[in-house]
């Protein structure tokens, strides 16, 4: 039993370390929020479609903005470890790959959750879409989307980090994998805006849940191989 506590402890201290570092250096979250806001505004500005149609389109753009904004903390959560060779230090500690993966997943999930807390209200302000009226459904959708993006993003981020090339590979590798998530989220938002949270909305949520579960298990099982050099 205490082995579980040991791993849980390790997991918690890894997450705490990441949160502490982010709180002190404030490197990823501000730029993530700014990028998301800028994308959202840029799209809203050009859309002079009738209200109903612009809400439909903007729903998709919201999640795209969350994706591109979210790619910043995902990439930084790994590249910041390179600073003083800390990624090698993490590999020297007797830490399981799965614990490390779940810790980075938690950090990325929190970052994405914060980003959607910023962008969703801004989206409602810009398009006065009735999202906040059914806020339980919206928050469930946002949580599942963030979980899916974080699950796939953490594995891809670790892969991109282990390469020497400095280009932002995270977005290039993550977008194809995350396309179904973005499709699902924007379609679910559209049906939410139409007010029917009926079977289609439920099915999309199941798809998002399935996506995050699959990627979580893949990450937990495969992360050791990413750590090897």
């Amino acid at each position, binding site marked *: 039993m205490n082995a579980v506590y*040991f791993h849980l*402890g*390790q997991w918690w*201290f890894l997450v705490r*370390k990441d949160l*502490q*570092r982010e709180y*002190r*250096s404030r490197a990823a979250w501000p730029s993530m929020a700014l990028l998301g806001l800028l994308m959202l505004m840029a799209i809203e500005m050009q859309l002079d479609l009738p209200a109903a149609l612009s809400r439909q389109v903007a729903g998709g753009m919201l999640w795209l903005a969350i994706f591109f904004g979210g790619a910043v903390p995902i990439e930084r959560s790994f590249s910041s470890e390179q*600073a*003083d*060779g*800390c990624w*090698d*230090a*993490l*590999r*020297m*500690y*007797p*830490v*399981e790959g799965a614990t490390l993966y779940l810790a980075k997943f938690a950090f990325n999930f929190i970052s994405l959750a914060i980003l959607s807390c910023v962008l969703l209200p801004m989206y409602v302000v810009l398009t006065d879409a009735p999202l906040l009226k059914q806020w339980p459904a919206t928050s469930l959708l946002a949580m599942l989307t963030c979980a899916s993006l974080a699950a796939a993003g953490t594995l891809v981020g670790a892969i991109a980090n282990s390469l020497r090339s400095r280009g932002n590979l995270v977005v290039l590798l993550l977008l194809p994998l995350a396309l179904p998530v973005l499709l699902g989220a924007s379609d679910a938002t559209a049906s939410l805006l139409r007010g029917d949270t009926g079977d289609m909305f439920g099915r999309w949520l199941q798809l998002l849940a399935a996506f995050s579960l699959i990627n979580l298990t893949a990450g937990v099982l495969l992360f050791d191989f990413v750590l*090897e*050099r």
Partner: protein
Amino acid sequence: MIPLEARQLGVAYNQRLVLRSVDLQIGPGEAVALIGTNGVGKTTLLHCLAGLQPCTAGEVRWFGESSLGQANANRSVGLIAHQRFLYPELTPRENLLFAARMYGLASPQKKVATSLRYAGLDEWQHQPTATLSHGLRQRLAVSRGLLHAPRIALFDEPFSGLDENSRQWMSQILHELRSRETAVCFTTHDQNRADSLADRVLEIVAGRLSERESGQSGPSSMHAFRPGLHPHNERAAA
């Protein structure tokens, strides 16, 4: 049981041979110094011995067991490398606490406190590590590397850039490690530092280890400083 052993260790980086076939054995309480000019592969060898880097040929053994893919063996290995393995934003105390918890040490708070006091970092323990001076960060890195009392300690240029009393502290650390039956291996440029602290001094030349009796501080240290001459082409010049 030999704590640290390397058998025909070979490392090649995309068609460039760094280490040819290195055989090395370090017993408990024994200190070995590795000297050699820059870029001859000292750091590569240390990283292989620490299990951070896979070797192209041959193998590394910790207490008889091969180091391939061994997570728990890391408890017995302590590496203090050029990179500090420290988080710049965290304070020294938080860095050590994090390391203690990763190793799962008992009573981490107490261990960290004694380690900080021993390293003389008490009054700097609450400011971010980034603001510390080079010497203090090196002390912190050494304390972090030895926090879990490893039975194999590997140091990469431990003395570079230290002022006098830090150097004394470093030598004291090495002596204490040897008294505690730890297998120590460190790389250095400084010939007489190597002689005074190590039982055996080995030099890396053209990818191989060659024995050098400690105390012989004659010509080798001189030609080592001739600028621009790499051992490979030194043979052509001699």
